[in-house]
């Protein structure tokens, strides 16, 4: 019943509906910004025009040096992250696949382990 009503009012447009959806999305995004720009009162202040960070008043200059070394930890984290993603499905099918799966995961983990050893040899694990 419901579908029949919808069918009578909305013609089947095939893939054109995709393009319509794209335009709707665009209009929605642009429209929201435009309407708020038109409707809202414009009273800039020193505090107001500061970029929003976390709600607390900002202190000091934003051009400070911070340690870029964190990317190393992100990279090493990624190694183990990917490892876990592969270990879960492996654990599910281990009983069915038997020794083959076991050998394969040993190879896989040892390759990742080599990566960790490489990072360690390079001194990437040292806190700088």
């Amino acid at each position, binding site marked *: 019943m419901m579908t029949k009503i919808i069918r009578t009012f909305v013609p089947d447009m095939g893939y054109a509906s995709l393009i319509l959806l794209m335009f709707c999305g665009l209009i929605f995004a642009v429209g929201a910004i435009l309407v708020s720009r038109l409707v809202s009162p414009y009273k800039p202040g020193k505090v107001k025009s500061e970029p929003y960070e976390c709600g607390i008043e900002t202190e000091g200059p934003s051009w400070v040096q911070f340690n870029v070394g964190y990317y190393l930890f992100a990279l090493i984290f990624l190694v183990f992250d990917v490892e876990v993603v592969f270990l879960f499905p492996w654990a599910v099918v281990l009983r069915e696949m038997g020794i083959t799966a076991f050998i394969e995961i040993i190879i896989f983990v040892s390759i990742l382990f080599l*990566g960790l050893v490489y990072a360690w040899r390079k001194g990437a694990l040292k806190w700088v």
Partner: protein
Amino acid sequence: MTEQYFSGLRIELFLTMLILALLVGKVLAIKQNPIGTLTLISVFLISSIGISFMQNESGYLFGTMFRTNSTILFEKAILLAGTFIVFMLGFEWMKKQKHFLEFCMLLLSTLLGMCFMISSGNFLMFFLGLELATIPLAALASFDLDEKKSSEAGMKLILSSAFASAILLFGISFIYGTTGSVSFDTIASAIDGNNVQKFGFICILTGFAFKISAVPFHFWTADVYEGAPVAITSYLSVVSKGAAIFVLMPVLYHAFGRMSSTYIPALILLSTVTIITGNLFALRQKSMKRFLAFSTVTQAGYLLLGITGNNTEAGASVVYFMLIYIFSNLGAFTVVSILQNRTGRDDIGVYKGLYKTNPTLSMVLLLALFSLAGIPPAAGFFGKLFLLSSAAGAGYYVAVIIASVNMVVSLYYYLNIVKMMFVDEPEITIEKLKPAVTEQISLFICCCGILVIGFIPAIYEYIYNLSAAI
């Protein structure tokens, strides 16, 4: 069952073992040993070329993920040979690098990615291979840490490839949405060429055009080629481009086989624009690497034209042309690499009067440029001949005539360099250069390739039979 996997994946397994061996070596060793490493890599690469000619069963592995047959193995052998020559020509520069082993590992990883890419029977596998081939290349392009231009090249390469990958994925998503599969086989039977699929196909073709630097998408080429180390420039211009062309063929003939009325006009347009624009830009270059960059753009145009022919002829002529192109382009790049290493310059002025000081080097460069231009004794002529006759065989005479006229135009700038070397007076004084042993090997292989391949018709017949067998 298991033997089938080992035999199908033998080249990939060899490369993986080599990369892991280098990694273990890096972790264990205190001092790096460039000569020993190079020997190890050469042995592995040459034996991989050997085993690629072994008896092979064609078929699929891992569902439809991995496809293998004799043509694919031959294509892999071409890429392996290209990588071997790149190692030879760039070794003098590589061995001075602090991170020599990492350089080798990254370069071999990109090769592994390309092997998976040309073996893919599935868009997912193809995309994984493409990313494995692309991301390390950006690191390699920015390998020269002292050169600002090198970092610029890496940055431009990674940004433009990320953009191309995004468009490619967008296209794949449309194909997946309309056919319900990412495997080439299922797509081939489910595709009907409606407008959404056409849009998806154009996006995928755009991704490919970025990779082989066809013209509206070639803007990264000259800057990246100029900034990257010479070894990487030559690798990008030959091996990386070859892999993209090799994988484009099964995608077009196999997955999009029913849409030939869509892809053939697109390819002809793309190739004509590429040839003309590449020629026009090559005329005005002052830097040798930029000049060769636009020369590669033009060659990509001829390759795209060859693809439009009937499937078997097109496949054979493209593989044959790539085989010759590897030797001609790498021959030219070896000379460029030697001169840039010794003089620190790569502008065209260095080559003025080169014949008076370095007759051997200028003869090799002459041969390589003749082959690139397609002048008869060199093998490049036969490569171009088969490409054009493949397109002519399918009846695209206008495109073939435009391409032939452009071959004449390209003679001007190739012969201009030759004239500079043989006729002009030297601008700077270069003493007689003595190429290192590795560079001599590279020069020798390239010369042999250029001189010999054209005169052995059996090679073309062999490739033709391989393509016909599929």
